[in-house]
């Protein structure tokens, strides 16, 4: 029904899409996978009208169409659920759902709120969300917002004749496992009304949900596989053009840690409303993984170690003594490095170049009496660019212009070069392609070998299991269970999930 024929898109210096053929049938769920830079996002933008192709044609039911903007694509039944939360948080749910399409409720210039609320309730029923449409969006949970987004796209159903194509861009990235299941069952149900294009970095989810999977590499579709014949290894091979090592998580490099010393000690620590009575020790060379759903207290623990939150009771020791005044400066001075989930907002400074970002947390080491030794900074940056093979033309490149993986490497280089030996990694591989992920895993092992302790909040459970020496399972801020993760003796997915929910 919806079809792309030999679609081409070029940007200055980049051939982003090379004669891509793509089609999706009525009620079908099509997966789209590929490494970062493979052309997935360009393809999606062409589909929902943000980009116009340079060559090739787009047809719907055989009729050629051309979209100048997303609005026109919507008018043809193509909607997009964005990766980043795309709801405007200061508006009510119903306003978000009908944003840009309020006209239907307007009589003589006046909005009929009752009518809009009724229509919104109708949409929310489609996604099985029982909330008051007049609720302000900021009061909703992330999962609820994701569903509202879906409901918003589903308004297309009423608005246009014909079939719907809905793009789901990384819809699960902020969802916990059970919420993902909920979303998937919903999507399957909705195939009676719409087709879906599903884009995700989580290969297992793509495999689980999709009827067919398009594999992209270097702007081309390199393979199309059906649900039944799909195989993770084969797809990953196609994506990266090489075998993905069985030892993806570098388990062979996992060494026992030094039990004699403690880097971070939590002794019955509580933070009101976030977590309670948490105790653990982080040792040199250890990867300690906090596992739990969104809101289980994982992030709050990281933020406590970094001095951004002050615990209400209990004792936190970093390198043997508690903070005098809990703040980030003191944590950094004690050798704590924080790799935040919001890489572009908290990790790097968009607008500063590579060396400026690398020394940001440790300017004191590159300054005499407050005067910077810029030559040394550059030397440091060049050194780490080589060591981590960061892809950047030079040290003067604005970090905002680097790819996600390279940005993450800059963040890690910042802390490692500054001599940090306690790392707080919050979703360190989020949004990275496989190659970049593997680089991060390598780095984690290296850091352990150097005697650093790592507290990890992983992107997936597999990652958590694969990487960690120790796993703490949390639920609603309460400690549930501790697992030991020595190589060959790792807990199973089921073990963890059992305690999480």
């Amino acid at each position: 029904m919806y079809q792309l024929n030999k679609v081409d898109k070029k940007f200055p210096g980049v051939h982003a899409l090379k004669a891509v053929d793509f089609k999706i049938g009525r009620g079908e769920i099509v997966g789209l996978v590929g490494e970062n830079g493979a052309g997935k996002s360009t393809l999606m933008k062409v589909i929902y009208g943000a980009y116009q192709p340079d060559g090739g044609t787009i047809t719907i039911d055989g009729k050629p169409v051309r979209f100048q903007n997303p609005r026109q694509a919507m008018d043809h039944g193509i909607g997009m659920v964005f990766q980043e939360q795309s709801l405007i948080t200061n508006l009510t749910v119903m306003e978000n759902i009908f944003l840009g399409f309020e006209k239907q409720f307007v009589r003589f210039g006046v909005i009929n709120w009752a009518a809009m609320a009724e229509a919104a309730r109708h949409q929310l029923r489609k996604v099985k969300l029982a909330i008051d449409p007049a609720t302000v969006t900021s009061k909703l949970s992330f999962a609820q917002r994701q569903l509202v987004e879906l409901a918003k796209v589903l308004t297309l159903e009423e608005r246009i004749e014909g079939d719907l194509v809905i793009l789901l861009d990384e819809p699960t990235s902020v969802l916990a496992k059970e919420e993902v299941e909920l979303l998937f069952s919903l999507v399957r149900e909705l195939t009676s009304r719409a087709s879906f294009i599903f884009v995700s970095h989580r290969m297992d989810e793509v495999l689980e949900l999709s009827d067919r999977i398009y594999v992209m590499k270097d702007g081309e579709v390199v393979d199309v596989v059906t649900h039944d014949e799909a195989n993770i290894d084969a797809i990953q091979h196609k994506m990266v053009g090489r075998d993905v090592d069985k030892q993806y998580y570098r388990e062979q490099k996992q060494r026992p840690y030094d039990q004699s010393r403690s880097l971070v000690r939590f002794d019955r620590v509580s933070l009101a409303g976030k977590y309670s009575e948490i105790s653990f020790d982080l040792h040199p060379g250890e990867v300690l993984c906090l596992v739990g759903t969104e809101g289980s207290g994982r992030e709050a623990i990281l933020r406590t170690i970094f001095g951004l939150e002050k615990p209400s009771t209990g004792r936190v020791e970093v390198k043997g003594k508690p903070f005098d005044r809990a703040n980030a400066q003191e944590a950094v001075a004690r050798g704590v490095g924080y790799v935040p989930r919001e890489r572009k907002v908290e990790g790097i400074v968009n607008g500063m170049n590579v060396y400026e970002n690398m020394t940001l947390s440790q300017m004191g080491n590159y300054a005499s009496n407050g005067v910077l030794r810029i030559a040394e900074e550059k030397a440091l940056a060049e050194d780490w660019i080589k060591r981590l093979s960061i892809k950047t033309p030079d040290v003067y490149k604005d970090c905002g212009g680097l790819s996600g993986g390279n940005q993450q490497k800059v963040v890690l280089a910042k802390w490692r070069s500054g001599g940090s030996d306690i790392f707080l990694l919050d979703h360190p591989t989020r949004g990275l392609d496989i190659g970049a992920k593997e680089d991060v895993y390598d780095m984690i092992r290296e850091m352990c070998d150097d005697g650093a302790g790592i507290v990890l909040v992983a992107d997936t459970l597999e990652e958590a299991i694969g990487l960690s020496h120790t796993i703490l399972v949390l639920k609603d801020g309460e400690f549930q269970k501790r697992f030991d993760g020595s190589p060959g003796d790792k807990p199973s997915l089921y073990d963890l999930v059992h305690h999480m929910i």
Partner: protein
Amino acid sequence: MGSRIRRETLVKWAPLLVLIVLCAFFAAMEPRFLSTRNFARILIAASPALMVAIGVTFVIIMGSIDLSMEGTVSVCAVAFAFCFLWLGGTLASWAWLALPVAMLVGAALGFINGLVHVKLRIPSFMASLAMGFVGTGLAMVMTGGDRIRIEDELFRSLLTERFLGFPLMVYVAGLFLLVAWFIQTRTTLGRNFYAVGGGEDLAIASGLNVNRVRVLGFTLAGVFFSVGALLAVGRIGIAETATGNNFMFLSITAVVVGGTALWGGLGGVWNTLVGVLIVFVIGNGMVVIGLPGYVQDGVLGILVILAVILSTDRKSISFVK
């Protein structure tokens, strides 16, 4: 959760509380403060500023800022005066047409302001600041520096005719306040201001024509500036280049004091009403209780800071610039 909701409620009503506390304080210091006649005086002084502040409120809700009000008010006042006198000089003649003409002039200036901002992609702070220069300059060119008196008794009845102790201009301002409230809550445009202020790129992704909303926002602000200009002329009976003086900092201070966030998406016209009243009650109260002139600026500064601190939800924002 309970404490959070209570704090939210407190923060939401803080500006009004500040206003009440201020009134109570001034009344305690000087009982005559608390009289209908004095409130009428405060409202007369506040009415033009309220109109200007409401205009800029819409722009601030969008996350932009409009600093062109001084120029726009002057041009509208002068254009109104010329047109009014030319058409007969009394509302009983065709000269009433000068009222819509002035509003059209305001709309046109706001429209140009919006176009400069959106089409030339100049941040609104700079675009509107420069447009303010243009406006003041234009008023100067139009008048050559002269003042134009509007003596028409019918027009001046805005000030001289009273109903329930308040002059007509207060009711006119109240009417336009309701119009603004209506626009804010019941029209697509009003809601779209909040959408743009809440997340511009998200609004674009939802298919909203953000540039159009922006230009319309500045145009609407221009219309309210012109209403402010009309009331200012009604109050003094003089239209001149200086009619717009002092409105810029005054109106933006009032908007912020009322609890509308400068980063957009929050607040509204009722907040602005409270903010304008706070500023004018302070101004009136300080003279009424007889503070020396040189202290008044400083006290105003301190009270403004306090009012903003009280009406800010510190927990919900990570930083402020």
